[in-house]
């Protein structure tokens, strides 16, 4: 071993030569092969890897689509139609990209609710969680701008409505909106900057994902029991155990993805977006893509313009301080009988808000939107702080391996009475 060379345990001389100079192989081995992972993951722990795969699919399809797309108000719509009709496999790349956006949100929402259920945001994983919320926010901005690019009616009017949100800002509102547009309405300058940013932001997302994974590998993964691994008997090497589990999950997920791409490619979209943008006619019923509907319902639930915008952004911002709002020390909902109930109520309320967001803003839907909005914020700001104080959690198992390995998993001899694992 010469001076300044890194240690390498690889035997292959070529790999060893490279590894001693730039220890990428050692790094990959440490973080993705030997990496000790709690042995009790369920399939909800697939969704981080799935999100990574979808991000890659989006970037690859996006790069190839941009080779054929023209970011100009006169050509954008036609260039997308040309992709669908004339470009070899253009239909496939566009349907993958279009449905990939929906898949990305499905996967990430499940990933987030997994974190909420099992308390993955709690100490010491607060920063990991915050980085995740930043990724969500970037994804929303990217998805919104991407939806504008085909320059259909929904593109145009969605862009108009969302950019006008900023006109609610006191004093500077109108200047901000003109600055966003680069003109006096959504027009060619807006389309050009949205295209530029839509191409840029995914790479920013990759950067934050890298930090997200780096932070994860410092604290280690949470697990369905929410207790820390107490030794090697509680963990498995990531490879081959979880590479295989993730690959299997990926196979199932890709079948689901393919069903949309090949059999119902426009099911999640709006027919109005196949009408070229017309700045003089607004479609009768304009709604955002499904993944924005709960937030859209919150926006419309509030009769005041500024407050509606504030609450809509606040509904995501509140996630940033979630690690400090939840006062319970117990992570997993398996051992929090009351939180578990409120968790499912919260899931129901989010779905209900989504349903209301898809309906016209009138009658019962306004009432339900308002109730849902109040509950959404109450869940974070009232229920979670109080539950931690009032709820009596079930006894935690002493270790991850204890319920499944003979002699309580060996090393640990703490005498706590071993309760059988709660079947959640």
């Amino acid at each position, binding site marked *: 071993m010469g001076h300044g060379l890194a240690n390498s345990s690889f035997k292959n001389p070529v790999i060893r030569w490279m590894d001693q100079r730039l220890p990428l192989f050692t790094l990959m081995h440490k973080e993705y092969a030997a990496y000790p992972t709690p042995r009790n993951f369920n399939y909800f722990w697939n969704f981080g890897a799935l999100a990574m795969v979808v991000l890659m699919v989006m970037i690859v399809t996006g790069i190839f689509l941009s080779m*054929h797309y023209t970011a100009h108000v006169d050509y954008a719509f036609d260039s997308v139609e040309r992709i669908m009709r*004339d*470009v070899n496999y253009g239909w496939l790349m566009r349907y993958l990209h279009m449905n990939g956006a929906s898949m990305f949100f499905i996967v990430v929402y499940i990933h987030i609710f997994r974190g909420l259920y099992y308390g993955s945001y709690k100490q010491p994983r607060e920063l990991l969680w915050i980085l995740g919320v930043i990724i969500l926010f970037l994804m929303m901005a990217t998805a919104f701008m991407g939806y504008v690019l085909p320059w259909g009616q929904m593109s145009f009017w969605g862009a108009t409505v969302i950019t006008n949100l900023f006109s609610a800002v006191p004093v500077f509102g109108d200047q901000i909106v003109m600055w966003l547009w680069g003109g006096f309405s959504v027009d060619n300058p807006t389309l050009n900057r949205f295209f530029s940013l839509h191409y840029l932001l995914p790479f920013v997302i990759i950067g934050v994902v890298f930090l997200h994974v780096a932070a994860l590998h410092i604290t280690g993964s949470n697990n369905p029991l929410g207790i820390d691994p107490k030794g090697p008997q509680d963990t498995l090497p990531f490879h081959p155990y979880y590479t295989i589990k993730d690959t299997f999950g990926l196979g199932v997920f890709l079948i689901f993805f393919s069903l949309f791409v090949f059999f119902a490619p426009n099911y999640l979209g709006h027919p109005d977006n196949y009408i070229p943008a017309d700045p003089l006619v607004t479609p009768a019923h304009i709604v955002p893509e499904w993944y924005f509907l709960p937030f859209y319902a919150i926006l419309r639930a509030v009769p005041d313009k500024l407050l509606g915008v504030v609450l809509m952004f606040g509904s995501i911002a509140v996630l940033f301080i979630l690690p400090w709002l939840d006062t319970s020390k117990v992570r997993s909902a398996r051992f929090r009988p009351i939180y578990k109930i409120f968790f499912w109520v919260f899931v129901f309320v989010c779905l209900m808000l989504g349903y209301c967001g898809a309906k016209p803003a009138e009658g019962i839907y306004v009432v339900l939107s308002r109730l849902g909005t109040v509950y959404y914020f109450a869940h974070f700001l009232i229920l979670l702080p109080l539950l931690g104080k009032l709820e009596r959690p079930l006894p935690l198992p002493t270790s991850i391996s204890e319920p499944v390995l003979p002699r309580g998993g060996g090393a640990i001899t703490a005498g706590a009475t071993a309760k059988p694992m709660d079947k959640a």
Partner: protein
Amino acid sequence: MADITHPDGQDSEGNGTTRRDFLYLTTAAVGAVGTAAFAWPFIDSMNPAADTLALSSIDVDLSPIAVGQSITVSWRGKPVFVRHRTAGEVQAAEEAPEGDMIDPEPDDARVINPEWLIVVGVCTHLGCIPLGQKPTDQRGEYGGWFCPCHGSHYDTSGRIRKGPAPLNLPVPEYEFLSDTQIRIG
């Protein structure tokens, strides 16, 4: 890995390969086929699209071109020279000795109707467009075209006769739709 499960590299039947080797190879094979199948649509999407291919042939009306005149038409993004040759030019092209040609080819293999020479006007050296279409242009020592970039001389059949270009100006695929109408491509 195989030598961990079977230190001697033998399976239970004493063969030199193991079940794990088989699994590795089949997994790798399936992975390679899957990757290739996924990659192909992306690679193919960069090939000319259907609308690009649809514009790959053009019709040219020859009636306004007087004897001795040349026109340039754009075909697949490249200039095509259409020259209505004079009797003298035809004769010069037909009688040129093939022996001192760089890329020997008889004139009758390059035309359908000897009056009309149709060639792609891109120098076969490094892709410049030779001079010779306008009456005022320099036409080189053989009265055809002259490439100003590196001095290639083409004759009245578009054949390279002098200079660095290795090949004659290519003749595009074309047909006469009538006496005065051709379709290139």
